[in-house]
């Protein structure tokens, strides 16, 4: 059986209470009544109403105060204010403060039923949204643990045994056998790395990343990023050049995450470069911001794909020839945005692509608490 909706009516006028009761009882709702604001608030606590009808003009505490206290206790509660014609202005004010709707006195049974039905529908939607949001948060929070345990654990057990077998068999294996074993290890290592990337994409950076913020030298991040991408670039005969302005100011952030963001962008540039291409990494400061640009002269991105390159799991048309899942740039964006920065892209098919990361520099006249 469906749960009956709970309606609380707070009004000091006996006539209004009676007519509300008469109309709403027929609709099989659970109803509670209070004759003033204080009693209404006390009753709301134990009754837990879905919807509240409250008179704005009452002796004692006003309808406004009741409204505020009710919403503080349950932000999802739907409140409808009952008001005389003379107080339509305050009804509008009440709606500005979060009331769902208002009902001018005198009202007909149909008007009451209609507004209550709409209010209850609103309540249902609000609760549903809240439940979905909560579920999404839970999935997100638990995803790391689930993936880690259900996928990562078996894979690392397999990998561990390949390590063990390779060590035990050692001399007994011929070259092709050893080669196959090595290839298996590489494949599994790739899968483990992929899972790691997924985990990072969903679980980091979160809000507590800010607690670890410290002054970060972007030169260090860029050096590390270029170093990381270098082997891949060498294999593709892509030249990476690095131009970092002297005395580049520090930004506030998490060095590991920022390095990861730059790594992902540089890796992406190398990946979509043609053999013999070049990738230019530049960093400079202007107008209170540091910008890092990563430009390649590679395949480029189709205009219709451009808006989506920072979305997770997106891979454009020109990306078809390359392997990957499309998380690197999404992760880069999340990291940059969690540092109050921005990342943008410009591209021409066949000519190349430029990514720009821009990060705010803390003002010198407003030093961070960590600074001496």
């Amino acid at each position: 059986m469906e749960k009956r909706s709970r309606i609380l009516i707070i009004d000091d006028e006996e006539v209004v209470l009676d007519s509300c009761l008469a109309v709403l009882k027929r609709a099989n709702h659970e109803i509670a009544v209070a004759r003033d604001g204080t009693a209404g608030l006390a009753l709301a606590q134990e009754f837990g109403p879905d919807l509240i009808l409250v008179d704005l003009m009452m002796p004692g505490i006003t309808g406004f105060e009741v409204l505020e206290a009710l919403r503080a206790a349950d932000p999802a509660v739907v409140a409808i204010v009952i008001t005389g014609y003379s107080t339509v202005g305050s009804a509008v004010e009440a709606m500005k403060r979060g009331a769902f709707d208002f009902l001018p006195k005198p009202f007909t049974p149909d008007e009451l039923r209609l507004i209550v039905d709409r209010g209850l529908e609103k309540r249902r939607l609000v609760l549903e949204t809240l439940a979905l949001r909560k579920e999404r948060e839970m999935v997100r929070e638990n995803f790391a643990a689930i993936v880690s345990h259900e996928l990562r654990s078996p894979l690392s057990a397999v990998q561990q045994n390949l390590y063990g077998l390779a060590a035990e068999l050692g001399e007994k294996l011929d070259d092709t056998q050893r080669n196959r074993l090595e290839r298996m290890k590489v494949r599994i290592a790739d899968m483990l790395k992929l899972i790691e990337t997924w985990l990072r994409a969903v679980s980091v950076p979160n809000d507590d990343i800010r607690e670890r913020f410290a002054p970060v030298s972007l030169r260090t991040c860029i050096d590390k990023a270029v170093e990381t991408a270098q082997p891949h670039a060498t294999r593709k005969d892509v030249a990476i050049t690095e131009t970092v302005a002297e005395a580049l100011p520090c930004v506030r952030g998490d060095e590991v995450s920022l390095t990861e963001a730059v790594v992902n962008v540089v890796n992406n540039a190398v990946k979509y470069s043609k053999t013999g291409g070049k990738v230019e990494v530049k960093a400079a400061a202007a107008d209170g911001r540091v910008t890092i640009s990563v430009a390649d002269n590679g395949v480029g991105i189709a205009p219709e794909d451009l808006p989506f390159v920072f979305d997770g799991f997106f891979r454009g048309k020109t990306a078809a020839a390359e392997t990957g899942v499309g998380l690197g740039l999404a992760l880069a964006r999340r990291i940059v945005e969690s540092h109050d920065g921005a990342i943008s892209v410009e591209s021409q098919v066949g000519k190349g692509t430029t990514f720009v990361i821009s990060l705010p520099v803390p003002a010198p006249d407003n030093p961070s608490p960590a600074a001496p």
Partner: protein
Amino acid sequence: MTQRKQLLMIDDDPDFVDGIKSILTAAKYDVDVAYNSKDGLAALEKKKYDLLLLDIMMGRGAEGVMIARKMGRDPKLREVPVLIMTGIREQIAFLFGSKALHPHFVEVDEMLEKPVEPKQLLERVEALLKAGGKKGPAKK
């Protein structure tokens, strides 16, 4: 002195255990195994081990942490070096902060992420055995 070192491994994944054990056995270590924390603690009580290889996520959660903490409170077991092998390196820092799980925990950095490369495993085990040896037998 020439006696083989006695290692205990507590991990609930038999496949992972086999993979580690084969590497350690080939390197001439004696390895006992417990597949849950209860058997693991019982084994630690019964025999003197030179090193414990410990998994973190077992049974109903981070039972490995419970074992490490229990060992830290026991004057005899406290002297046994622990090598933690886990698949949850990042979460562990989050879950337990920088608080040491075990007296050796921070000192010798004995956490490895699964899977563990044989060379790395053997190096770490050797280093821990050395560090454990220096500490000498448990004080009376």
